[in-house]
């Protein structure tokens, strides 16, 4: 099946502005968008640049805008896209080259919520106990692969640079609701600031964008409720 890829290109060494280029590829309907990109890179234009690694939706490298929606290129099949496919880099981050963006800001925000277990000394032997029910409460947010699809789909992040964004909140949630963690209050205080959860306008773009089907908006709501009612 022949498909035209419209790809947004930008080479900082030669271009002042980004522009679109078109490539015709011959793909199997079941090919991933990543396969189509590889076809261009390997056989037509070696300068085309994007990140990729695992190829099946777990490493989080290849989030991009596919026909206007944030998706992983390795989790969308060509058969679901039509004859013309537009590929653009994630919005809101500086474009480094073509479909590849600067992720530093994203990781800095992630780090700002203390995304690691803070807990009292563990038992000398054996594991800390946690019931299946306690474990279940934060299951959804453990699935995050830090692909930035949610954060870069959020209109609030496009408007205000200092909003921590959905991904950071998801990762704070993962610890705030972990029965073993003792620093929930600290993280809630961070998210209670002007840069935190109250910026969220409940647009649900993040939930739609998440390739791991995390209920991102719901997680943000739970954090808000914890701030109001103290029920973590």
């Amino acid at each position, binding site marked *: 099946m022949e498909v035209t890829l419209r790809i947004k290109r930008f*080479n*900082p*060494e*030669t271009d002042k502005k980004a522009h679109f280029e078109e490539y015709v590829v011959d793909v199997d309907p*079941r090919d*991933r968008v990543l396969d189509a990109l590889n076809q261009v*890179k*390997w*056989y037509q*234009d*070696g*300068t085309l*640049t*994007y*990140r*990729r*690694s*695992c*190829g*099946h*939706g*777990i*490493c*989080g*490298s290849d989030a991009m805008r596919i026909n206007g929606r944030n998706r992983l290129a390795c*989790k969308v*099949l060509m058969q679901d896209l039509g004859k013309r496919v537009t590929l653009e880099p994630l919005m809101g981050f500086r474009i*480094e*080259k073509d479909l*590849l963006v600067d*992720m530093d800001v994203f*990781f800095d925000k992630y*780090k700002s919520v203390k*995304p*690691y*277990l803070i*807990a009292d000394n*563990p038992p000398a*032997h*054996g*594991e*800390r*106990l*946690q*019931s*299946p029910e*306690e*474990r279940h409460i*934060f*299951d959804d947010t*453990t*699935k*995050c*692969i*830090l692909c930035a699809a949610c954060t870069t789909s959020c209109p609030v992040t496009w408007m205000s640079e200092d909003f921590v964004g959905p991904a950071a909140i998801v990762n704070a949630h993962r*610890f705030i609701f*972990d029965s*073993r*963690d003792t620093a929930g209050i600290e993280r809630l205080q961070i998210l209670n600031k002007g840069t935190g959860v109250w910026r969220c306008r409940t647009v649900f773009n993040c939930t739609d964008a998440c390739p791991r089907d995390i209920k991102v908006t719901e997680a943000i709501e739970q954090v808000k409720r914890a701030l109001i009612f103290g029920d973590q």
Partner: protein
Amino acid sequence: MAFHRYDAVVVGAGGAGLMAAIQMAGKAKVAVVSKLYPTRSHTGAAQGGISAALGNTEEDHWEWHMYDTVKGGDYLVDQDAAEVLAQEAIDAVYELEHMGLPFNRTPEGKIDQRRFGGHTRNFGEAAVRRACYAADRTGHMIIQTLYQQGIRHNLNFFDEHHLVDIIFTDDGQCAGVVTYEIRTGELHVIHAKTVVIAAGGFGRIFRVTSNALAGTGDGVAIPYRRGIPLMDMEMYQFHPTGLYKLGVLLSEAARGEGGVVRNRDGEAFAVRYAPTLADLAPRDMMSRFIWQEVKEGRGIDGKDYVLLDVSHLPPEVIDEKLPDITDFARTYLGVEPKREGVPIQPTAHYAMGGLPTNVDAQVIRDPQGTIVPGFYSAGEAACVSVHGANRLGTNSLVDLVVFGRRAGKKMLEDIETLDCAELPKDADAFAREQIDSLKARQSGERAADVRKAMQDIMMDNVSVYRDEGLLLEAQQRIGELKESYRNVSIMDKGSTYNMDLLEALELGNMLDLAETIVHGALARQESRGAHYRGDFEARDDVNWLAHSMIYAEPDGSLRLEKKPVVITRFEPKERKY
């Protein structure tokens, strides 16, 4: 060129690298170099579990785990190392839990455990629940947890730096590494007392693989070119259940939870070959059973695949315990595992071989075990050897954590006593030349064509079934492809994120490794574990109860030496399941 000095350089930020780095955090000056952002490492793809004889759901002992590891590896396992693995696995899993890893839990709140291929109770009696897990996302949880700890400890990450060379002094001490900063194209020389290679495996040598596109074995090939031997390279594992054509893995956990593999007649055939463990027979065997079924015309529609069937499992087990892998089947093949079988075929999965090390993760340079000062390796890049001729499921994650930890500890010790080796004047000269010549070439072969040809010949001739004819053909073909590689040219001549250049460098690494795999496979005239020779069907303990060590000679030829296997508790026996 930028210059840095560190006590320790960790190459690779997967499970093994991060575990090593965390041991040293705050106690030494550590640089973690990774061509990917750490969380993109392929450890995140691991699904099924990490084994340790915790005995949380039924009786278990580390001696049983050790035995299974040795037998699973068809007795090519060094038993001193397997003992360390099985014993320290227990603490390692607890350490992961303490770091925050969200394991699935038993009703009493302990870490839950499940069955996995080749793991048995009481020296082979029946399957045992030994694999600790977090749904089918165990590796994801490990990489996230370790990266979180890395942030907590303020580790110094060199993200998106590609290792291009390792520097050794004339008397063989490691003096540091040369990396290529992907963002800018700048070369960095990192002068260091100690360097650990934890750069993962090389499944991308084969056409159908479960490995990431980044799984190109750079960390193994680069030291090899610098004179370090590689051990047991012919031992490459094919996992029986990869998605048809794509190779994306469907974890053994599917069979651990009760799934079976069926042929065109609907027969769950594994029990015919392995009466005791049936579908939980080790991977090398399962892959061969499938190969045999296909060869005898019992593949689906006469083609080269069979079906993994979990449709008889309760839907809640599928949703709770196998959510990701069933999602893969839906996404990529449009198949609903709750109703129908999923088309699968063996997929290139895991390198048992790699950089030879002792149990302290120190790289050795000869069969006598002489160490290379300042040079270490852990994880899939290394060969301790705890996996021998065939790795058991869940034992790689254990290996990462146990030997990653040991590497970090040993390095910390050695940093105290080692002097920083002197750097040669033009430390980055070789790397620069390699890059400049690739960029300078105006026309030539396309890397993608050479890579495809390599992957095809390796898949068709050097995978589950091998014989002399196939291997000789592969040897010749790889030789030709190495010639073509000298003429590879790239289109991107820039400095910013030049992935075209990196893919070409990776191809050079894979070709060197492919050559060692074929060389080892030709030499080893026996069948053992993952290495099956149709022309030498029996295991030959008289001649081949030995590791192969392959050296790159200056004239371009390869030399093979044998290293005896360490046997402590378990005498080699016939391997039956």
